[in-house]
């Protein structure tokens, strides 16, 4: 049976073009009752996070930062410092894991786990390709918004559990920031959902495919879509504590905020979670407004660029590219904009983004009704 | 499982909603009033202590016009069985709007409340919100709607209770109200879920049909009924769901105490009557089988324990508000007697009693407010000698208390008379219940009379104080309450006819 299943799985992996062909094949695949396919299905995003975080995340960010600041970045380990990430891994793995005596041990240990699991669970609904999605939920977008909130619990657990003033300040600030920005973010994504008329991530993506490439993307479907797009992008920066909204972990003020006390593997987990979230929000932004795994290239007359660059494997490429692009923008902003003060942060959220999100919501609703 | 309805279905749904909106105008009007109040509060700067109540009172009074128009509409379901418009609901619309007006009126005179630094904007809008919630409670015919409207009332009531933010008693009252409220509502929802499980319906008409057509596990039904009673019983403040009453009534701002003791209780009764008289069929006499769907027996137990407990514990209260709180528990018991009768007469009696209770209890609390404005106390000992210093207030309070005891020639007597008439109309089976009713009202005489006793029979502790005069407007209001209490005690036909007219419950299965 297992051999049969293996043989069955090979074909769609290479050939399958139908929707979710890969993930459905994986879902049905089990060995001796153990749903190995499911594990593999889940492992793929996990591996992706790990790889991307270590390469693009650690090495890439350092290098990009360096370029922007006109310096070299890591150069010591290997050619151009290319093995720097490996060194980092080894360091984190064997570094002593200190648990402060005053900490709440349980929360201290559990916090990073929650943080990571929350971030990772969101990947379940990200369609990496027309053929691959972790879990094809009909409420995918909603689920993605909801599940990310679990991170708040992890942050609070980590900050509180550390029993360190910096950590607690950082955690509370971070929570306040995340929950506040969830309002404009939620409303902005709602606009996208209204344009699509569904919450299914695959459906949302599919509705944006077409021969004209980027012209089918939600962002270009209505002039109003730019408003929620920008709002969500700004809010998502705050949600993942990226600059200029990085006061929760502001090194110079709070000494890394809620993970001040963390070291070794626990730090690595937090770190993975952060980078996972970064990709997650970028991917959601891409899916809702920029067509997800759809190729942005239009068919130019006889040159059917779009058809050529479409397909399950191309889809993987496109969505990761789009995600990485936004991560790049995030890194870019980090070195461009100064950090906001707490009151500015709240001002921006409640008095700028939220009202504008509402305006965008109302306009989108009217647009969608009256301009078909 | 989650299929979207077809286009035609959607159109019919929309048409249904549009048709229902026409029957929903008073509620919409009040919601608009609620928002107008908030906006006025936000826009207008400076002293708003008269502007807001005036808007509230005139606005609420304006809703009478829309409610009156509903008389011409035929009784029926709206919003797909969520909501109903019948005489019973109309009665409570009048009732709650009136009580909202009165609450706003007496709030104007409460000096404690007006001293609240954060302003009164939310206060009046919350009062209006509570009116809306209670109106919807009285008309809700779906478990979901019942739950939502009860929560609307509850949530606003929590805030109103704790409105005096700096007063520890007020905050404590709010906390207790909230905790008991949340727990009992939680239990009620659990009961609802069981009912839903048994019948597969949340509409009370269809629940009743299902229960009649199919047999249900009596034990589960009993548990469900008990849980639901926890929610309703909490709202009406009946034993054993009364624990919040004394503290909340004592701690709240007095107008809110009055408002809760009357309107919130009445809303509880409205929903209790609608639910029990419509949804749950009742088989036979009250004594059949304890583990069956015998909610009447439950109500009887509730009623008896409320009457006895409320009246007995009130005996040794020193705080007037607290005493009135315990007495309100007792009154819940009397009101339940009318519900237990399960017939038109019983319903009529309950409604009449509610009307009379509105009049006399608001009056009593109003005088308590005026007195505490002057003396700064609600303590029984501080009422000494007030009869001489505040003659009209003393006389009015005495009349209200006499009415609360149920002595002629006051409206409270007629209320009791109607209740007992309804009971004896059933023949001899409920006589013992009526006996408990009258005996406990004798007990109630003792503690009610403690107030006039202190006011008239005892000398003031500070004999040199001059007479404490209240404003002319307050005196007029007080006198109106007093005269109405007496007038309706002698000529109660209009009230009673109104109650009779209103006892028509749409789709009830019991009578």
């Amino acid at each position, binding site marked *: 049976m297992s051999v049969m299943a293996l043989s069955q799985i090979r074909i769609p992996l290479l050939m399958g073009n139908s929707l979710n062909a890969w993930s459905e094949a994986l879902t049905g695949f089990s060995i001796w009752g153990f749903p190995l396919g499911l594990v593999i299905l889940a492992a793929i995003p996990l591996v992706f996070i790990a790889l991307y975080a270590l390469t693009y995340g650690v090495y890439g960010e350092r290098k990009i930062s360096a370029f922007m600041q006109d310096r070299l970045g890591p150069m010591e380990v290997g050619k151009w410092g290319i093995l720097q990430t490996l060194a980092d891994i080894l360091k984190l793995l064997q570094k002593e894991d200190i648990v402060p005596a*005053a900490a709440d041990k349980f929360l201290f240990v559990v916090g990073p786990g929650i943080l990571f699991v929350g971030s990772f669970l969101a990947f379940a609904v990200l369609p990496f390709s027309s053929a691959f999605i972790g879990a094809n939920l009909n409420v995918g977008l909603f689920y993605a918004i909801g599940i990310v909130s679990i991170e708040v619990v992890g942050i609070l657990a980590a900050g509180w559990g550390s029993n360190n003033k910096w950590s607690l300040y950082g955690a509370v600030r971070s929570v306040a920031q995340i929950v506040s920005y969830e309002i404009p973010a939620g409303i902005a994504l709602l606009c996208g959902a209204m344009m699509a008329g569904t919450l299914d991530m695959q459906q949302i993506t599919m509705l944006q495919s077409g021969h004209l490439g980027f012209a089918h993307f939600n962002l270009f479907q209505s002039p109003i879509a730019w408003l929620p797009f920008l709002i969500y992008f700004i809010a998502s920066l705050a949600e993942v504590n990226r600059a200029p909204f990085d006061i929760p972990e502001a090194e110079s003020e709070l000494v890394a905020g809620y993970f001040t006390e963390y070291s070794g593997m626990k730090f690595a987990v937090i770190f993975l979670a952060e980078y996972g979230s970064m990709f997650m929000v970028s991917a959601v932004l891409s899916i809702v407004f920029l067509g997800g795994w759809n190729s942005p290239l239009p068919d130019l007359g006889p040159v059917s660029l779009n058809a050529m660059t479409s397909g399950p494997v191309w889809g993987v490429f496109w969505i990761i590219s789009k995600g990485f692009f936004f991560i790049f923008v995030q890194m870019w902003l980090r070195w461009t904009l100064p950090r906001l003060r707490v009151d500015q942060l709240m001002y921006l959220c409640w008095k700028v983004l939220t009202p504008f999100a*509402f305006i965008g919501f109302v306009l989108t609703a009217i647009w969608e009704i009256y301009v078909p | 499982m989650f299929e979207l309805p077809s286009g035609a279905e959607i159109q019919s749904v929309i048409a249904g909603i549009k048709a229902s909106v026409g029957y929903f105008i008073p509620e919409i009007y009040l919601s608009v009033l609620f928002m107008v109040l908030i906006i006025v509060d936000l826009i207008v700067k400076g002293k708003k202590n008269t502007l807001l109540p005036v808007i509230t009172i005139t606005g609420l009074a304006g809703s009478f016009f829309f409610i009156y128009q509903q008389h011409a509409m035929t009784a029926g379901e709206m919003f797909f069985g969520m909501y109903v418009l019948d005489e019973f609901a109309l009665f409570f619309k009048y009732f709650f709007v009136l009580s909202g007006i009165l609450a706003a009126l007496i709030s104007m005179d409460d000096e404690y409340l007006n001293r609240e630094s954060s302003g009164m904007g939310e206060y009046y809008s919350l009062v209006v919100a509570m009116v809306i919630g209670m109106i919807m409670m009285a008309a809700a015919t779906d478990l979901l709607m019942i739950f939502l409207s009860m929560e609307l009332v509850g949530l606003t009531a929590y805030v109103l209770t704790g409105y005096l933010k700096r007063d520890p008693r007020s905050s404590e009252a709010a906390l207790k109200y909230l905790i008991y409220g949340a727990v009992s509502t939680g239990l009620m929802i659990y009961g609802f879920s069981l009912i839903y499980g048994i019948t597969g319906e949340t509409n009370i008409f269809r629940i009743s049909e299902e229960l009649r057509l199919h047999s249900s596990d009596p034990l589960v039904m009993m548990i469900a009924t008990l849980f639901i009673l926890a929610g309703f019983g909490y709202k009406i403040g009946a034993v054993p769901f009364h624990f919040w009453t004394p503290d909340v009534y004592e701690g709240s701002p007095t107008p809110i105490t009055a408002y809760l003791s009357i309107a919130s209780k009445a809303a509880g009764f409205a929903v209790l009557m609608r639910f029990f008289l419509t949804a749950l069929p009742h088989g036979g006499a009250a004594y059949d089988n304890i583990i069956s769907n015998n909610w009447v027996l439950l109500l009887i137990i509730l009623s008896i324990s409320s009457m006895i407990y409320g009246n007995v514990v009130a005996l040794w209260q020193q705080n007037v508000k607290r005493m009135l709180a315990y007495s309100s528990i007792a009154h819940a018991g009397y009101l339940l007697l009318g519900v237990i009768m399960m017939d038109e007469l019983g319903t009529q009696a309950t409604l009449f009693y509610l009307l009379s209770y509105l009049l006399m209890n608001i009056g009593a609390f109003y005088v308590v407010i005026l007195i505490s404005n002057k003396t700064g106390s609600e303590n029984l000992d501080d009422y000494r000698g007030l009869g001489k210093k505040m003659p009209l207030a003393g006389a009015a309070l005495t009349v209200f208390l006499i009415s609360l005891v149920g002595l002629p020639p006051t409206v409270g007597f007629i209320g009791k008379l109607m209740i007992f008439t309804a009971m004896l109309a059933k023949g001899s089976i409920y006589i013992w219940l009526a006996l408990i009713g009258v005996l406990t009202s004798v007990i109630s005489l003792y503690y009610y009379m403690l107030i006039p006793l202190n006011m008239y029979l005892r000398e003031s502790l500070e004999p040199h104080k001059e007479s404490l005069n209240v404003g002319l407007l307050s005196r007029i209001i007080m006198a109106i309450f007093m005269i109405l209490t007496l007038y309706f005690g002698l000529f109660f036909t209009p009230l009673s006819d109104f109650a009779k007219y209103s006892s028509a419950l749409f789709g009830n299965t019991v009578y």
Partner: protein
Amino acid sequence: MDQTLSSFGNVFAFLALGIVFVAGGYLTARMLRPSRPNPAKNSTYECGEEAVGSAWVKFNIRFYVVALIFIIFDVEVVFLYPWATVFKSLGVFALVEVLVFAGILILGLVYAWVKGDLDWVRPEPKVPQMPVMPDRKAEGGRA
């Protein structure tokens, strides 16, 4: 197999794998890393200072206020999501309804705004002032 359930089964697999990954990471690290705790190392980090008291102290009430406002708005937004998926087929009627809904919601926002619940305490800029020291001589004399 029920479609919905199976989808959430996948989510469950993600959850399980996530936990296993974290736990596995911890275990691996524990096997590899040294463990040599000492009191100084285990003390709470406060930039080198001795930690004073516990960090579990009271917090600025504004954080709670933000939480309260968030709860209300977030929950209301939840209602809009199901609506968003169907409103096109419902037409103008649904639009009007949701505008009423959003209007009330916006009124709530305005309310919180006007009441000042959205204001954060602004840090007062500390303008450095030249110290006026008339007694400099006296001090100097004492020194």
